[in-house]
Each structure stands twice: as structure tokens, then as C-alpha cells.
């Protein structure tokens, strides 16, 4: 919704341009276009396309990090293999599936909380009150703080012995004994969710706020005249109207959450129980030097994320600004 109107305009003006000009000028402009795009195209191919292709290739080999030039092709063995009736490979590796589960759980819980809280914050920022500009600046601060710094700040606040959160909860009588937030696998993922919600709710709120500010005001005035309750107006009018923007925001946040690395790596100190998919893959690749296995995990992560993108695009509700020509 945010971008589709701009895209449509651009498409129309491009057609006008194409018609209204002599063909030699058009040809020279098309040549120039390719010239202008070439450097970016080369760089993107070199640093994104080629490494991705190599990662996929490595997943079919027994490469090790010590010497990346010395490897042999082993087919699908990194994924699944059978020796003497016993199965090997990442696809039957409990640690891998555990990391997949952790990542999915983290994504669903944190993005849901961010969406609900983001709507609340956006509605507040959409109301006229003194200090609104200041408030908008305030909620941007968590977003601006580097993830590593947030993770360290929260690790300190969540410290089991000297942390301010345990102290606060003890004083309020909400817990009887200090909680080992980040060391315990049950609470560590909740801790990660807490930090992620703290950091990213403002992002969600700003995207929703942009959508709210584009809504026509006369609907609300009409509702007010008819005496419809604000709660009803929100669910019947506001929510359906901001749904496209909301979906775009949810998709971008989910894609981000699915590749979570920094936060979980720092907050839960690289532990096996709380590893996300990205943490698992890097551990295989770098800590255990198993480039083959690590690449297989990376390839699976790529496929999972690509699948999520394809499903959401195929659902057809969200058009990520394709070019209507």
C-alpha cells in the first residue's frame, strides 16, 4: 500500500517517456542503463550470488575450514546417509531440529508480540498530544542501539546474582528466588524474545504509524457522528485498512527473526540448547571447521526462508511492489 501508488505512477510515466522520444535516443538511453547497472550487477553477483552458489556446492562435499581447496564430492551425505543400516546426516541430527524449533518459536512469539505492541504504540503516536515528537524520538532509541550492545545491556540487567531485573522482581514479591534467566534453556529464549521485542517494536510501530496517517479522516468523523464505539471502529475500520501495511511489516520482521544470530549468540553464550539455526550453522562451520555440514545447514536455512517468501507471495495478499508494465 505504501509503495504501490508510487510504483503505478512510475510505470505510467515510463510509458509516456518511451512513446514520446525518437528511437535512437531511446536506444542510447537503454545502452546507458546497462552501463549504469553493470557495476552494481557485478558486485552483487560477486558478493551474494557466487558465495551462495559456493555454499550450496560445499554442502555436497567434505570440505574443512583449514584448507578449502582440498575436498571431495560426497553427494548428499551431509544431509542424509546410510552406513551399515545406521543413518547419519543433518536431517536426522536432533541438535539441528532443536535449533529449527528454537528459531520458529522465537520468530512466532517475538513477531506476534511486536505486532500487537506495535499497533498500540502506533495508535498512541497517531493521537495528538503534547510531546508527540519527543515520544517518537524516544521509541527510536532502542532501534538505534547496536544489537550486540542491547544483548550485553540486557545480559547485565538479567544477571542472576547482581541483575536489576531479579532485584526488581524480588522487591515486588513476584519471584521468591533469583532466576537464572540466560543460563537456563527454558527462560533464555524468553529473555531473547524480551530483548527482541524491546528493540524492534518501534520499527513495527513506525511502519504502522505511516499507514495510519494515510487513512481518510472523514470515515472517523462519520463513525463519531453515528456514535460507534472506538473499539468497534478500530476492529471494523482501522484494522482492515492498515492490513496490507501490517502484513508487509510482519513479513519483513519475520524474515529478520528467522535469521537471528547476534542476539542469541551473545545473550545465551553460544549454548546448544538455545541455538538458533544461524548459530547452529556457524558453529559447524567455524567452531568445528566442518564446512560441509555447516554449508548443508546454511543451505537448508536458505531454503526455509525462500519457502516462507514464496508462500507469502503466492498467498497473493502482499505485492512487494512489482513493476506493472
Amino acid at each position, binding site marked *: 500500500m*505504501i509503495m504501490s501508488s*508510487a510504483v503505478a*505512477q512510475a510505470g505510467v510515466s515510463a*510509458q*509516456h*517517456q518511451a512513446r514520446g522520444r525518437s528511437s535512437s535516443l531511446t536506444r*542510447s*538511453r*537503454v545502452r*546507458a*542503463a546497462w552501463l*549504469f*547497472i553493470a*557495476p*552494481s*550487477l557485478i558486485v552483487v553477483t560477486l*558478493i551474494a550470488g*557466487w*558465495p551462495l552458489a*559456493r*555454499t550450496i556446492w*560445499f554442502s555436497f562435499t567434505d*570440505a574443512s575450514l583449514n584448507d*578449502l581447496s582440498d575436498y571431495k564430492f560426497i553427494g548428499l551425505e551431509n544431509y542424509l546417509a546410510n552406513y551399515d543400516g545406521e543413518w547419519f546426516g543433518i536431517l536426522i541430527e536432533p541438535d539441528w531440529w532443536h535449533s529449527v524449533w528454537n528459531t520458529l518459536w522465537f520468530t512466532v512469539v517475538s513477531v506476534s508480540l511486536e505486532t500487537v505492541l506495535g499497533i*498500540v504504540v502506533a495508535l*498512541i503516536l497517531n493521537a495528538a498530544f503534547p510531546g508527540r515528537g519527543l515520544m517518537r524520538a524516544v*521509541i*527510536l*532509541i*532502542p532501534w*538505534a*542501539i*547496536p*544489537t*550486540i*550492545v542491547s*544483548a*550485553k*545491556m*540486557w545480559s*547485565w*540487567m538479567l544477571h542472576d*546474582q*547482581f541483575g*536489576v531485573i531479579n532485584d526488581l522482581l524480588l522487591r515486588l514479591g513476584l519471584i521468591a528466588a533469583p532466576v537464572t534467566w540466560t543460563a537456563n534453556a527454558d527462560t533464555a529464549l524468553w529473555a531473547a524474545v524480551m530483548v527482541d521485542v524491546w528493540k524492534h517494536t518501534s520499527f513495527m510501530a*513506525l*511502519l504502522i504509524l505511516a499507514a495510519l496517517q494515510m487513512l481518510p479522516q472523514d470515515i472517523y468523523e462519520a463513525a463519531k457522528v453515528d456514535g460507534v464505539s472506538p473499539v468497534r471502529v478500530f476492529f471494523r475500520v482501522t484494522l482492515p485498512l492498515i492490513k496490507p501495511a501490517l502484513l508487509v511489516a510482519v513479513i519483513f520482521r519475520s524474515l*529478520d527473526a528467522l*535469521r537471528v*544470530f*547476534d542476539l542469541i549468540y551473545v545473550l545465551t553464550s553460544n549454548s546448544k540448547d538455545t541455538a538458533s539455526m*544461524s548459530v547452529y*550453522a556457524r558453529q559447524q562451520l567455524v567452531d568445528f571447521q566442518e564446512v560441509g555440514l555447516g554449508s548443508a545447514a*546454511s543451505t537448508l*536455512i*536458505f531454503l526455509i*526462508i525462500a519457502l516462507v517468501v514464496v508462500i507469502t507471495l503466492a498467498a497473493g495478499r502482499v505485492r*512487494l511492489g512489482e*513493476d506493472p*508494465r
Partner: protein
Amino acid sequence: MKLLARTGFWLLVIVIAFFALFPFYYAIISSFRTGSALFSVAYWPETFDLSNYFAVFERQPFGRNILNSIIVSGSVVVLSLALGITAAYAFGRIAFRGRSLMLMTILAVSMFPQVAVLAGMFELIRSFGLYNTLPGLILANLMLTLPFTIWVLTTFMRELPKEIEEAAFVDGATPWIVVRRVFLPLMAPAAVTTGLLAFIVSWNEFLFALTFTLTNERRTVPPAIALMSGSTAYELPWGTIMAGSVIVTIPIIVLVLVFQRKIVAGLTAGAVKG
């Protein structure tokens, strides 16, 4: 009833502001406390001891780490903008075959999980002899910034009226002159926005910086903070970690507050990256 609603509203505003600000406030007061003072919880600033701020520079090459981060992020911004503006002109203003497909591919690249290119990028950086160097990190970080720079700049470029360049073409200007003389000045606000976003992404980048550097002197700020340790195994390094965190966060917060409107515009303009 009305009074109740107003009180509730302001209570909510206060709770949100508290939740947003408290962690950073707590990091600041912790950074002024040293030794055994850190073993007790304090809610108000009691001491103003700068020794953590000196310690963070003495115990590790933190000044060097900050310089590294500035070099890497600065270069990434310049390269992304230089490549992005020229590409965005072509994508945004010229109709040619394969344009939509290429734009969609570039958008897809901006959704790549970083870890999916890690092994291939490691090989690439090593084969260029760039392992444990700053150019290696610059190259890797471009993968994160270039796609969304092109995408956002293209969105901005499309919104400019078409008459602008037509006059220049009638006067016989070449496309390159049009980009430089006509679009570059017009794109300045958009370039500031995307440049800032690229700077923040690169300044905060952790996975590549952790994997492609080996020695303390070559690290950027995020891995330096993540790997900070105390002077002895028994000392809690939290005071110095908080001091380091405050030092590297304040410039970013200032940037964000100064350019608040531009950043919000950039985030909502199209390609959104957290």
C-alpha cells in the same frame, strides 16, 4: 470517564517511555560504578567514576576498534551510494527489458540470510587475501547494504517528475551528465537517508566481523564488545563493557535523533531492513 481515559493514556505513554529508555539509562549508571559497587543494584546514579572509560581503552585496542568501525562503515556507505545512485537512475528512469526481473532479484538478495553465504564468502575473502583485513569486511558488508540502497533509491528516483530530465535531454545532455548534474542534487535528501541506514547496518554488523577477523587490532566494535573480558578471570567486566557500549551507542543515538524524520521516511519508503 473522560478523566479516566486521559489518565490511562498518559500512564501508557509513561510505561512505554520507561520501557524504551530504562536499559540505556541503567547501562550509563552501571558504567560509572566499579569494583564491588557492581555487586549491589543501584537505581540512581550515586558515583561518577570515569575509570571504566579509561580501562576500556587500556585493556584492549578499543580506540583502534572504533577507528576500524568508522573506516568500514564509512567506506560501505560511500561505495553503496556511488553504485546505488547510478543503478537507481537506470532502474527508476529508463524502461528496458528485464528491469522488473532484475529489481526483484535485488530485492530477493536483500532477504538472503547472512549465514547462507558465510562459507562461500569465507572462501572468496581468503582467495583475495583479504582475511583479517578491513577491505574484506567492507566487501562482505556491501552484500547487506547495496541491495536495499538500490531498492530505496529507485523508489525515490521514480517519484521525481519526468519533466526534469526531458529539458536536459532536449539541451543535448548525455545520461551521465543528467545523473551528475540533475539527479545527484535532487537525490541528496534520499541519499542522506539511505546512507544513514547503510551506516547503521554496517556499524552494527556482527556475524561477518566475528568470522572474518582474527586479531583484536582488526576487529570492529561489535565483536570487540562481545568478546570483552575482565583483567582477571574473577573480575566482572560489566563496568567496562557498559562503558564501551555507551561510547559506541551515543554517536548513533545522536545521529538517529538528528535525522529522525529522514530515517522514518527511509524505513517506510520501500525496502525495509531492521
